[in-house]
């Protein structure tokens, strides 16, 4: 991590904004997540929302209940105590992924005039600028490691995904030159160093690689596994892609509609220090836990 001291700033009279680091790293994300958990556990009166993000977080408070200076002092105190935690109990989830599908392909072709390379598809462009010899080789790298859900938001239930590999192996792709006005729901997107799954149809600027048949947000709460809560992902979840073809896509979609589909999900403990010592070994163990 490039920086040791967090930057505190107020977003108006109702938000305290804390930037752990200017740049993205798993360490900054871990610190953000553990401080947010500690703030939640402290049950500070007047705190109404705690939003962890990639390398920063935000606390919304009611200044009629707690003075801005007091909430800042309280959060600083919690941050000073909470920074040691490098182990989290979390979940690992498998997400079926149909890459180069007809729906995102049709959409990306409609918006070529907003793209860096109008003569290639999004995934061809991403493979080339990341120096992969082919789209298949790019996809092997894309699906070859797990991803951290480093933030949930933008719109309801949308996970931001951070690739769990050393920085030199991380995929990076610019966003569209101008955002699209349309993105199919459940599109697998990528922008900067972050992947995402678009939870709803709408505007978007991330490159489009594919689509999942597995709903991740259901405001009606009719989908069996979204009946407890309408959003599937939480910050700190670990995601593993499972590449599928058209047949696999259709079959899972039918299962979802019939209420038969249950996402593959197990509880795991993740240790950042162990991960940094041995990235591939730790990732292998996570996959073994998922498939055990």
């Amino acid at each position, binding site marked *: 991590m490039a920086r040791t001291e967090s930057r505190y700033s107020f977003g108006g009279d109702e938000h305290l904004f804390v930037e752990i680091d200017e740049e993205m790293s798993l360490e900054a994300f871990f610190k953000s997540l553990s401080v947010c958990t500690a703030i939640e556990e402290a049950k500070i009166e007047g705190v109404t929302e705690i*939003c962890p993000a990639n390398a920063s977080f935000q606390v919304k408070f009611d200044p009629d209940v707690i003075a801005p200076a007091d909430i800042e002092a309280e959060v600083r105190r919690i941050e000073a105590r909470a920074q040691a935690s490098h182990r989290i109990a979390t979940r690992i989830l498998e997400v079926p992924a149909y890459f180069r599908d007809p729906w995102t392909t049709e959409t990306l072709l409609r918006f070529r005039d907003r793209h860096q390379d109008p003569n290639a598809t999004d995934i061809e462009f991403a493979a080339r600028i990341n120096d992969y010899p082919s789209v298949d080789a790019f996809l092997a790298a894309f699906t070859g490691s797990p991803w951290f859900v480093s933030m949930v938001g933008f719109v309801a239930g949308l996970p931001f995904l951070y690739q769990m590999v050393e920085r030199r192996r991380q995929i990076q792709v610019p966003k569209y030159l101008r955002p699209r006005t349309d993105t199919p729901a459940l599109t697998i997107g990528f922008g900067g160093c972050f992947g995402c799954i678009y939870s709803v149809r709408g505007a978007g600027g991330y490159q489009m690689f594919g689509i999942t048949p597995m709903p991740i947000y259901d405001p009606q709460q009719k989908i069996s596994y979204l009946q407890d809560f309408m959003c599937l992902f939480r910050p700190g979840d670990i995601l593993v892609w499972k590449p599928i073809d058209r047949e696999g896509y259709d079959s899972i979609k039918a299962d979802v509609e019939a209420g038969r589909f249950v996402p593959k999900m197990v509880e795991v403990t993740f240790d950042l220090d162990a991960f940094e010592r041995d990235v591939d070994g730790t990732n292998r163990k996570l996959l073994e836990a998922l498939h055990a």
Partner: protein
Amino acid sequence: MLEVVRAGLATTVQDLGRPGYYHVGIPISGAMDRLAARTANLLVGNPEDAALLECPFMGPELRFSDARTVAVTGAEIAPRVNGQARPLWTSFRVDKGDTLSFDFLEKGARIYVAISGGIDVPVVLGSRSTYALGALGGFRGRKLEAGDLLPLGAGAGAAEGRTVPEHLRRMPEMPARLRVMPGLYWHRLTEEAKQSFFEDTWKVAPEADRIGYRFRGGRPLTFVPREQPFGAGSDPSNIVDAAYPYGSIQVPGGTEPIALHRDAVSGGGYMMLGTVISADMDLIGQLQPHTPTRFVPCDMAEALRARAERRKLLDAIRAHLAA
């Protein structure tokens, strides 16, 4: 039952919002002009947080299947019952079969139509507010359409003729003045940009809705040169995706400031230069496209004073209507 004969432009069911789910991207929603919404409910004898209709730029046409008390607050869009004019900011009766319609917009941007008993759509995550982007809450998660039948709650309704005098109403000045606390990524702006942002008169762009208000016409903002941090993206206005405060002002590419409102996107990768103070958020809800707008610098002490003044105004409205 309330029948929607004509829906207006983007009429939605709103209350005072749905706090607690911003960390998964579900914004607070609720009336953009909270003070006008609370007042409308008080006028008809509802709890202040009852669900009502928020109608931007244009009124709907509504038919009642039973007698109710109604009040319209916020923008100047004169109501009519069966074609007969009724005053704004004042409770009036409608009978079974009556039709409520509206004249054209004269001033402001959004009216709040409160009906005794409130709009009785299901409570979702603690609120009846519509979050249209997520198809959540309100009436079927969307803006109203002609032919919709809205359930109304039971409620006696206050007498007609209750009114709020003009000095207890709050609408934007001309040009509008929005107080902004610099902060968040303010340090990314050059000294020239820090000055020009507050010196220039901006205009509300046509892209102005419940998610956010866009402004244009000021000088482009320039950024302090730097090597972009890992993960931030290549544009100097990019940051590593972070949480966006309500009211925060982001400036993609340095050209057009966007102030996020009640249906805010909860986070993203654009630097924010500061935040509209809580006391002035209601005013944004009453800005029409093309309204000239000045951003006025403000510190925390002034923001808290403004917040206390707004609360005092609300207390005065309550006292006036309780008398």
